C-alpha cells in the first residue's frame, strides 16, 4: 500500500459474504424482558399495574357477570342482586334502539340498521370503484328513507317526529357526512378562490360557524329559524336539525380539506394547466383526489365526531339512541339501573366508531400503495 500523506483512513474489503444480524431474545421470555422488565423503573410500573389489574378485574367480572341478573321481567329479581342488572336491557332494548317509532313497525328500523352495517362492510372491500360504492350508498339511502317514512309499497306512513333510536342516529349521521363533505370541499375551494366575493363568503361561513357551539347552531336551526320564516315555508324539524349539523360539519371539515389543498405542490396545478385542463377538471381529476387522500385520517376524526354529535339532537326533542335511553330510564321500576343502560349505549357507540376507524385504516392502506 502506498504511504498516505493524511491521517484519515478506511479499511477496504473485497467480496465479504453477507452475515446475519445479531440475535434478539425471542419467545415469551424475550418479549417480557424487552417490554415489561427492561429497567427497574419498568419493572416497578409493571408490578403496580399488575396489582391494580388484580384488584379491579375480579370485581368488575363479578359485577358484570357472576353476580349479575340477566332475566327479571318485573324487576324484582334485580332488587337484591349484588351485581349488574342486565335485565333492564332485555326489557328496554326496543325503546333504546328504536325510540318512539311505532312498536309493530320497528322491524323497519332494524332493517335500516342492518343495511347501514352491511354498507360499512361493503365500503371496506378493496377493488370496487368509488363510483360503484357511491351508487350503493345512494341506493341504501333511498331504501332507508322509504323504509322509515313508509307510505309506499304497503308500508304505513310514519311521521319523522316519531323516528328515534339507532335508525334516527344513522339517518342524521349519514345525511351530515353526505351533505357536509361536499360543502367542506366547496368552502375550502372558495377560501382559496381568486374571486374576492367567493373568498369572503367562504371565510365568513367557516369562521362564524366554527365560532359557535354545535348546540347554538342547532338552536338557531330549530328555534330561531322558524321565527323568521312564514308558516307555509316551515321545514320539518328533523331536516332543520340535519341542515344545522351539515353546516357545522362542513365548516370544520373545510379547514381540513384546505390543509390538503395547500399540501399539493404548485407543479401539479401547472402540469394540469399545461395539459389544457380547466379549473373544474384540474380540481376534480388532479388536485382534490390527492388533497382528500392526504387528509383521510383527519377527516375520519371529524366523521367519528359527527356520529357522536348526533346525540345533540336530543335537545331539540329528537330521540336518538342516547335520548331514547334517557327516556327508558324514566320508568320508576328501572331508574336505578342507569349504569347498565349507559354501558350498553357506550358499547353500541364504541362498536360503530371502531368500525369507522377500521374502515379509515383500510382506506389509508389502499391509498398508501400509490405513494412510494
Amino acid at each position, binding site marked *: 500500500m502506498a504511504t498516505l500523506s493524511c491521517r484519515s483512513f478506511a479499511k477496504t474489503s473485497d467480496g465479504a459474504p453477507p452475515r446475519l444480524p445479531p440475535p434478539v431474545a425471542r419467545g415469551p421470555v424475550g418479549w417480557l424482558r424487552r417490554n415489561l422488565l427492561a429497567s427497574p423503573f419498568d419493572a416497578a410500573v409493571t408490578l403496580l399495574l399488575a396489582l391494580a389489574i388484580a384488584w379491579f378485574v375480579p370485581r368488575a367480572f363479578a359485577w358484570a357477570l357472576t353476580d349479575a341478573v340477566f332475566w327479571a321481567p318485573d324487576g324484582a329479581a334485580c332488587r337484591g342482586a349484588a351485581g349488574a342488572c342486565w335485565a333492564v336491557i332485555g326489557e328496554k332494548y326496543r325503546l333504546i334502539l328504536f325510540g318512539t317509532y311505532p312498536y309493530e313497525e320497528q322491524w323497519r328500523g332494524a332493517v335500516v340498521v342492518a343495511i347501514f352495517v352491511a354498507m360499512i362492510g361493503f365500503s371496506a372491500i378493496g377493488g370496487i370503484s368509488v363510483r360503484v360504492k357511491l351508487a350503493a350508498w345512494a341506493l341504501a339511502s333511498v331504501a332507508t328513507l322509504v323504509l322509515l317514512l313508509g307510505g309506499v309499497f304497503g308500508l304505513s306512513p310514519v311521521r319523522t317526529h316519531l323516528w328515534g333510536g339507532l335508525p334516527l342516529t344513522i339517518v342524521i349521521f349519514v345525511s351530515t357526512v353526505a351533505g357536509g363533505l361536499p360543502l367542506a370541499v366547496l368552502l375550502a375551494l372558495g377560501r382559496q378562490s381568486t374571486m374576492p366575493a367567493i373568498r369572503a363568503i367562504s371565510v365568513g361561513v367557516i369562521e362564524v360557524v366554527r365560532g359557535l357551539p354545535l348546540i347554538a347552531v342547532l338552536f338557531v336551526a330549530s328555534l330561531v329559524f322558524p321565527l323568521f320564516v312564514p308558516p307555509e315555508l316551515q321545514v320539518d324539524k328533523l331536516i332543520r336539525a340535519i341542515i344545522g349539523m351539515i353546516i357545522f360539519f362542513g365548516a370544520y371539515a373545510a379547514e381540513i380539506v384546505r390543509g390538503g389543498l395547500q399540501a399539493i*405542490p404548485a*407543479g*401539479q396545478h*401547472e*402540469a*394540469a*394547466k*399545461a*395539459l*389544457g*385542463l*380547466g379549473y373544474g*377538471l384540474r380540481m376534480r*381529476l*388532479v388536485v382534490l*383526489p*390527492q388533497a382528500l*387522500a392526504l387528509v383521510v385520517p383527519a377527516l375520519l376524526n371529524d366523521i367519528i365526531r359527527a356520529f357522536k354529535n348526533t346525540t345533540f339532537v336530543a335537545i331539540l326533542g329528537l330521540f336518538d339512541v342516547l335520548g331514547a335511553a334517557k327516556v327508558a330510564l324514566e320508568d320508576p321500576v328501572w331508574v336505578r339501573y342507569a349504569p347498565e343502560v349507559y354501558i350498553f349505549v357506550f358499547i353500541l357507540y364504541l362498536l360503530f366508531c371502531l368500525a369507522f376507524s377500521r374502515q379509515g385504516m383500510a382506506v389509508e392502506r389502499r391509498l398508501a*400503495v*400509490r*405513494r*412510494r
Partner: protein
Amino acid sequence: MTAGDRGGDWVVEFRDVDKWYGAHHALRGVTLGVARGERVAVCGPSGSGKSTLIRCVNGLERHQAGIIRVDGIELDAAGRALATVRRRTGMVFQSFNLFPHLTVLDNLTVGPIFAAGEPAASAEARARMLLDRVGIADQQAKYPGQLSGGQQQRVAIARALMAEPTVMLFDEPTSSLDPERVQEVLTVMEELAHGGMTMIVVTHEMAFMRRVADLVVFMDQGEIVEAAPPELFFTRPGTDRARAFLGQVMHL
C-alpha cells in the same frame, strides 16, 4: 446571428416582452422567434429569466407588455387563447410533475380524454405507442412513485406528446435527475429532435446543446444577451457575461 426580423414561419414568437414580479423586472424586452422544426436552447445563470421565458409561452406566467404568439395565436391579457395555446404546446418540467395518484397510462390519457374529449380507447392506444417509443411500455400500470427519476421524466415527455403539440417546452428537464439517469432522458429528447419536433429547451447540458440546438440563447438578468448557433456560442462567445458564465459551467 441574432433572432432578427426576417419574417417567416414562427411557431413561437416574442416581441418586446416584459414581465415583472412585483418591482423585479424579470423579462426585459425579450424578442425571439422559434422557426418550425428548429430547436432553441436557452441557458444562463439562475435567476436570469430563462424559466420565466419558457413559462410565458404557454401562459403559466402572464407577461405584462409586448406580444407573444404561439402558432400564430396571440396570448391576450384576458386569457381567452390560453386553452388553445396549451393544447398546442407540450411542457416538461424540472420536477416531472406527474400525477402521483394516477397510473402511468392514466397520466398520459387524462389530458386527451378530459381536455380534448378523445375516446378512451383511442387515447389508450396512442398512449401505449408513445410509452413504447420512450422505452417504458412495460411500466404502464405502475404509479409514478414506483419509477426512477429518469423513467418518470420519460413518462412526462410521453404525456406532453399525447396532445400532438406543435412545440415542446423543456424547463431544465435533467436538472433534478441522478447523473446516471440524465442520458436516457437526453436520448429521448434527441430522437424527438431528429423527428423534426420544434423545441425550446432550458438546459445546462452543453454537449446536448452542441448536438441538437439550432440556436443557443444566453440570458442574464432578464435580457437575451447573446443568441448564436452552438458552434459559435461555445467557441467564440461575443460578450463578457457569456464568457464568464461558460467559464463557470465548463469548469464544473
